[in-house]
């Protein structure tokens, strides 16, 4: 029976989603939905962790199921990251929605189904499952962004993300249709074999590759296709921004890896000169530079974090670009980076929620002015989060960047320059991260401005403690998480 454990997380989330829908419909307002959602997500995450550690072999799963959903350890690892991200944002939502009087059950239903979509996308080994996962996830996120109906900023952010999102999905779909036409297979392994055997028409493959990369780059908000990110992140309620920054990005990178490694892993399309690595490296460089440069000029912390997410996408893309050669190490660094990025992002956004109270979100730097001195304990998570995002030594962020750097340097050649740009741009980025700490402790709030007072919310506090614990633990003792990432990477390649 334990083979079904590999697919259990998806089942748990699906039934949890339906259950919460019914609970919300039949007993509105009474059930503590935030708690229910988080427990469901954590349960799903735990099942995948148990399956990952116990090394279950997917022997008896029916052939038809394995043709569509990956049952390897990488899939489980992505489940863990996505479930963790979704559970923490559900906790933040528990506090945030009550504070801003948006307490409606639909939010949690959307959250669970988007998390389910993200997990399907991360485990997609067939183009059909890819498209279904992508759309399920994005539709849920569009609705969550536009959740605060009365505010024009939320609706506008949702509209921008929706229009660009579906446009990019259509481009991605066109690419997948072309690759299906060229190879006759819709499952990634089948495509990879045909491309390796060189049977496909080169022009079609190249065009398909370009379109697919565009679609995926959009999802992970890499530079040329990042226009929606600042608006969507800022317009959306903060728990949704956390979920978008965390789970959506993880799923985007997961499918990018699967697509580029298994489908386009053949020498022609993956060659360092003419294949996708230079393309990805170029995008990575652009994202890193633009993300950090634009981040400097921001007055709103939330918008700054949006640009920082673009920069981090650049850092991960560096590892992806390198994965054509040092496969296992590059993939492991991407996996580790995603987990580190998840927890530190939750810390950053969670503390923004914590510091904003009585219906007024702490969004701009001025809101945070002096908050550190007045409530040091409430400002601590923000400090840790920012340090981790910056890549300061004792935190998870530092080690993740270090791991990506060593992989890039081990390849040598062109990648050395990319590594140098990575170091320079993250140093540049340190400025706006430190600016937060400066405002927290050194600056005094203007005379009339409302002072940010931390709100009493068990959910948010618990989420921040959990995330803070992981950020510190992964920074201090990265070994167990690294081993898990490497083991997942190995099963990915075999």
């Amino acid at each position, binding site marked *: 029976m334990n083979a079904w454990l590999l697919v259990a997380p998806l089942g748990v989330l699906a039934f949890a989603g339906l259950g919460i829908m019914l609970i919300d419909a039949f007993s509105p307002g009474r059930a503590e939905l935030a708690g229910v959602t988080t427990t469901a997500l954590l349960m799903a995450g735990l099942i995948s962790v148990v399956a990952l550690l116990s090394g279950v072999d997917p022997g008896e799963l029916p052939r038809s199921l394995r043709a569509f959903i990956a049952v390897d350890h990488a899939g489980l690892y992505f489940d863990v990251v996505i479930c963790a991200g979704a559970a923490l944002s559900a906790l933040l939502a528990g506090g945030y929605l009550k504070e801003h009087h948006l307490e409606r059950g639909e939010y949690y239903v959307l959250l669970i189904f988007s998390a389910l979509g993200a997990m399907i996308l991360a485990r997609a080994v067939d*183009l*059909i499952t890819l*498209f*279904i996962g992508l*759309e399920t996830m994005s*539709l849920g996120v*569009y*609705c969550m962004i*536009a959740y605060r*109906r*009365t505010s*024009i*900023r939320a*609706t*506008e*952010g*949702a*509209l*921008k993300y*929706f*229009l660009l999102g*579906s*446009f990019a*999905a*259509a481009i991605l*779909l*066109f690419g997948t*249709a*072309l690759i*299906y*036409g060229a190879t*006759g*297979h*819709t499952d990634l392994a089948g495509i990879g074999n045909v491309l390796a055997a060189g049977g496909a028409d080169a022009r079609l493959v190249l065009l398909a590759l370009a379109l697919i990369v565009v679609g995926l780059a959009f999802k992970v908000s890499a530079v040329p296709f990042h226009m929606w990110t*600042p*608006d969507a992140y*800022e*317009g959306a309620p903060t728990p949704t921004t956390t979920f978008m920054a965390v789970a959506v990005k993880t799923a985007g990178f997961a499918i990018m890896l699967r697509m580029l490694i298994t489908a386009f892993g053949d020498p022609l399309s993956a060659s360092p000169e003419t294949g996708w690595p230079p393309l990805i490296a170029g995008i990575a460089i652009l994202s890193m530079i633009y993300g950090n440069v634009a981040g400097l000029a921001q007055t709103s912390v939330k918008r700054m974090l949006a640009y920082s997410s673009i920069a981090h996408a650049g850092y991960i893309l560096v590892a992806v670009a390198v994965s054509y050669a040092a496969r296992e190490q590059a993939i492991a660094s991407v996996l580790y980076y995603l987990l580190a990025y998840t927890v530190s992002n939750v810390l950053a956004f969670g503390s923004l929620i914590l510091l904003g109270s009585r219906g007024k979100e702490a969004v701009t730097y001025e809101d945070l002015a002096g908050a550190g001195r007045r409530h040091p304990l409430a400002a601590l998570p923000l400090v840790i989060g920012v340090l981790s995002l910056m890549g300061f030594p004792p935190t998870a962020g530092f080690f993740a960047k270090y791991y990506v750097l060593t992989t890039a340097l081990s390849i040598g050649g062109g990648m050395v320059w990319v590594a140098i740009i990575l170091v320079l741009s993250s140093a540049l980025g340190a400025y706006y991260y430190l600016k937060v700490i400066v405002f927290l402790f050194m600056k005094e709030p203007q005379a009339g401005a409302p002072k940010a007072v931390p709100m009493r919310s068990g959910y948010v506090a618990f989420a921040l403690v959990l995330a803070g614990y992981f950020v510190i633990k992964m920074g201090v003792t990265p070994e167990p998480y690294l081993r898990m990432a490497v083991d997942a990477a190995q099963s990915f390649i075999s």
Partner: protein
Amino acid sequence: MEFAIGIYLALASALFGIGAIGFLLRRNALIQLMSIELMLNAVNVLLVAFNRVHPENMAGQVFAFFVIAIAAAEAAVGLAIVISLFRLKQTVETDSADELRY
């Protein structure tokens, strides 16, 4: 007569092009929604045409089924967002959505 994929490829890319241009140029949100639907339908044409080229498995047509379903879901969510925009701004012109400017 041998199945000429070229015609269908041309048709699908033409439709896709029209949809993309329509999406980029027009300022009315509804027209943009329609052009996205047009692009998805262009992909459907392509999928079914390619299925005739590889008749061994019906993957192309099955994919087309799912694209139809998802295009419908997308249209539903898109319209909901456009309606909430209309409720706030009394217009569906996307230019009007300029709050998150800087």
